[in-house]
């Protein structure tokens, strides 16, 4: 097309003219109009990414179908039903427990005169920085048999046994303490956004504060509680580290053992499919619940400082409640890790810190962050700028990682690698591929959110001033969404640093990462060796999280 560069932007309009108006023929005319409006390459890139995200699930299915007898046996085995039952018990208990802790905490830190409530708010989010295997390790070391607590009780009181931590009890407690922040964050965000007028209207209609909370505030929080509970349920379902260390046989632990020790790959694939099915059911349940509650809390943030509830004589109990939760979820793990680190240093332990593992972790995480952000851009752009069936479908596909536990993604890619890509099997490429699939939803979410803030007219203005479409995107849109891109990259980086099951399965042989070396140390109860890398992971994740929580305040 011999158009001056300045007119490139009008390509869109030109393409819509009827045939025979003088424009040269191009294959793009065969495409439907709505597909033509965005450069084809963008659509192709988005489709490729969505396809790639679907790959692990596809290969799990293929692998299971290949030996369908073994697979079917595994699926209908009574043992599978038992695993399912154990998983469901754990999910229900952890979700309920998280809601019961998180909703009061969120309300206390937003609406009341709880002393030091900003500090409590930060402390209530920080458990997210603790990988589940680190949390489990800390609890085993503190409260397990021959643990610190028992040691302290033994000398003065002669207590030789404390209630057993392993199994459902321990897994429930540890997972509640590590995952309640998901509910805390969603409920807190909604509490800030709720228009105070709702509650004021109820009060002026003659209703008491308690009636108002029960009939107005709480129902308006249901969607937030549901969204947070879904995150907790999925986290519990996909968790590998905590259930494995606490010896509670849920899907992830059984699948790993089938694959790793029994080398029964067909049944591992089949169980992974069941696991995926459970995850998808959870998402559908939440989506169904949300559809019934079609309302949304007012999008416009509260304009006025809302009335602060005076706790009065409830100040002390409320403070104690916040204190106990923070002590258990944050204090215990940090204390235990520091304790072991100091003991290790004092004992002159060698190999306290594994710099090779740190180097590998950082390297893989940077690859993962860059690759995931690049992969997320086409889907994010299309879903924001060209909302429609295809872009919505592509966006859905990118959410596979949300539903798919790391162990299932890892296994799916193992099967794919062994059969079709031996060249990259057990190399960093396939591992980074797994990270991209797992963390794509996080990146798409962050980039989408920042793209929604960009007025598309800005790009059009740039094009009408003579910039090409791609140039306009790079010079106008990208600088504006840079904070979103950066946030996406940081989140993916941190999640990759902590990721365990996929790294265990797909990691190049002999290249330890922080996560896998903590895992090895923990499995062997080599607490001193796990302490330093664990503390590093926790601190590295805690820093940006603190920043995010504090910014929540200043942005209002």
């Amino acid at each position, binding site marked *: 097309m011999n158009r001056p560069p300045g007119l490139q932007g009008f390509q869109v309009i030109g393409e819509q003219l009827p045939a025979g108006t003088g424009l040269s023929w191009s294959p793009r005319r065969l495409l439907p109009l709505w597909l033509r409006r965005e450069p084809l390459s963008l659509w192709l890139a988005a489709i490729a990414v969505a396809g790639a995200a679907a790959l692990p699930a596809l290969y799990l299915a293929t692998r299971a179908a290949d030996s369908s007898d073994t697979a079917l046996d595994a699926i209908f085995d009574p043992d599978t039903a038992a695993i399912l039952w154990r998983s469901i018990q754990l999910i229900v208990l952890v979700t309920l427990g998280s809601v019961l802790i998180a909703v009061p905490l969120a309300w206390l830190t937003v609406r009341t005169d709880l002393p030091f409530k900003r500090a409590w708010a930060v402390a209530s989010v920080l458990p997210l920085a603790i990988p589940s295997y680190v949390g489990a390790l800390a609890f085993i070391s503190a409260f397990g048999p021959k643990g610190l607590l028992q040691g302290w009780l033994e000398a003065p009181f002669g207590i030789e046994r404390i209630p057993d931590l392993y199994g459902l009890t321990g897994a429930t407690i540890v997972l509640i303490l590590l995952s309640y922040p998901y509910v805390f964050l969603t409920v807190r965000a909604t509490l800030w956004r709720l228009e105070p007028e709702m509650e004021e209207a*109820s*009060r002026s209609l003659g209703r008491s504060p308690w009636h108002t909370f029960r009939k107005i505030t709480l129902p308006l929080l249901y969607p937030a509680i549901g969204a947070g509970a879904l995150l907790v349920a999925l986290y519990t379902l996909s968790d590998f580290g905590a259930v494995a260390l606490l010896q509670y046989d849920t899907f992830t632990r059984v699948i790993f053992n089938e694959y790793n020790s029994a080398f029964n790959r067909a049944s591992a694939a089949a169980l992974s499919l069941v696991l995926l099915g459970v995850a998808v059911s959870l998402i559908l349940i939440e989506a169904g619940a949300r559809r019934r509650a079609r309302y949304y809390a007012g999008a*416009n943030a509260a304009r006025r400082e809302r009335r602060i509830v005076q706790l009065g004589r409830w100040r002390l109990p409320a403070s104690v409640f916040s204190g106990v939760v923070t002590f258990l979820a944050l204090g215990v793990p940090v204390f235990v890790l520091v304790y072991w680190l100091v003991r290790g240093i004092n004992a002159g332990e060698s190999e306290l810190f594994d710099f090779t593992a740190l180097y590998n972790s950082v390297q893989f995480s940077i690859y993962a962050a860059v690759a995931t952000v690049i992969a997320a851009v086409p889907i994010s752009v299309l879903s924001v700028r060209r909302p429609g069936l295809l872009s919505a479908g592509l966006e859905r596909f990118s959410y596979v990682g949300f539903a798919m536990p790391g162990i299932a993604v890892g296994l799916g890619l193992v099967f794919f690698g062994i059969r079709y890509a031996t060249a990259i099997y057990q190399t960093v490429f396939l591992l980074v591929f797994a990270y991209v699939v797992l963390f794509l939803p996080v990146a798409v979410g962050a980039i989408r959110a920042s793209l929604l803030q960009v007025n598309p007219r800005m790009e059009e203005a740039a094009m009408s001033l003579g910039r090409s479409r791609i140039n306009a995107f790079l010079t106008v849109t990208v600088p504006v969404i840079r904070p979103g891109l950066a946030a996406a990259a940081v989140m993916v980086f941190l999640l990759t640093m902590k990721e365990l099951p996929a790294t265990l399965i797909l990691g190049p042989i002999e290249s330890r990462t922080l996560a896998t070396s903590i895992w090895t140390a923990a499995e062997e109860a080599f607490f001193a060796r796990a302490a330093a890398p664990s503390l590093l992971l926790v601190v590295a994740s805690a820093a940006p999280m603190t920043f995010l929580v504090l910014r929540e305040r200043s942005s209002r």
Partner: protein
Amino acid sequence: MIGLPGIRKKRGESVQTDIALRCTGVSKTFDGTIAVEEFDIEVKRGQILALVGPSGCGKTTVLRMIAGLEALDTGRIEIGGETVATSGRHTGPDKRSVGIVFQDYALFPHMTVSANVGFGLDRKGRDERVVEVLELVGLSGLGERLPSELSGGQQQRVALARTLASRPDVLLLDEPFSNLDAGLRERVRAEIREILKAAGTTTVFVTHDQQEALFMGDLVGVQVGGRIEQVDIPERVFHRPATSFVARFMGMADFLPVNVLGPRLVTEVGPARAIPGFEPPQDAPLQVMARPDDFVLAPSDEGQGVVIDRVFQGWAYTYEVELNSGLHIHCQMPHLLSIDVGQRVLVNLRRDHPQMFFSDGAAVPTVPRYGQT
């Protein structure tokens, strides 16, 4: 009204009195900023008071204090003869017979229209009352809808119905029409005024729109800087403003210096006419207020002004004229007469009615801030 079905019995039924709402010396300070200062008002049963003022004048704070959503610092608020707030005592919003309709309606999004309207009612007789009130606001048959399925105007009426349902002694409306588009607004405010009058509800209504205040209010209160400048019937607030602020705020007004020459009051645009017995202040500058329709323009090369701008408004032109003294005035003339920008014009004051005079920002002779109501 006692004993009707569905009425929530508020603590201490109103003492019989003609005054539904009385605020005396009410003041409120937020973090050192005075929001409301020495606010006095009296509203009789069934009256609609329109509080109007520029944004930030504290009118919404007044509403919130009457509703009990904000505590006052000093002063007293009485509703139906019963004191609900003084500096030491604060009756909660749920214990006052006051209903408030918020600017953005604050409908409960998770409840149907009926459940919203019945929210403040006791179970006994609730359904009947809901049907009755929905009919009053013209929304019969929409009870099972969710608020999100209604138009802006309908949501507004649901909010009103919800508040009217429990028959409050005083109804408060906070900028109720600001979320409606212009075309809808005029229709809705006529409807709402009719509903309020039919229900006989004492109402305090807050707006920043003068036209709305003049239309809606039995009484118009002009508020500025946390204080009431003037309260009176709409006509008097418009035609006999107590201060030059009220004059300017309620409608376009120009002020021309007046020379007192014995009995004659002379301005740059000719003599002004005062009420009989007018006594100009001694040794203080006097100004006459003129609204755009108080002037008569005629093109003339001998004129004492030049047209510098012309705004076409359909039925009329508004001209901005620069007088020889440099003063700018605004004159409205029928559209039949079209004068070009740059044309010299002869300007005169209409002589068919007496004008208002001001000295030091206050009307001369003094107009009482609290009119006879």
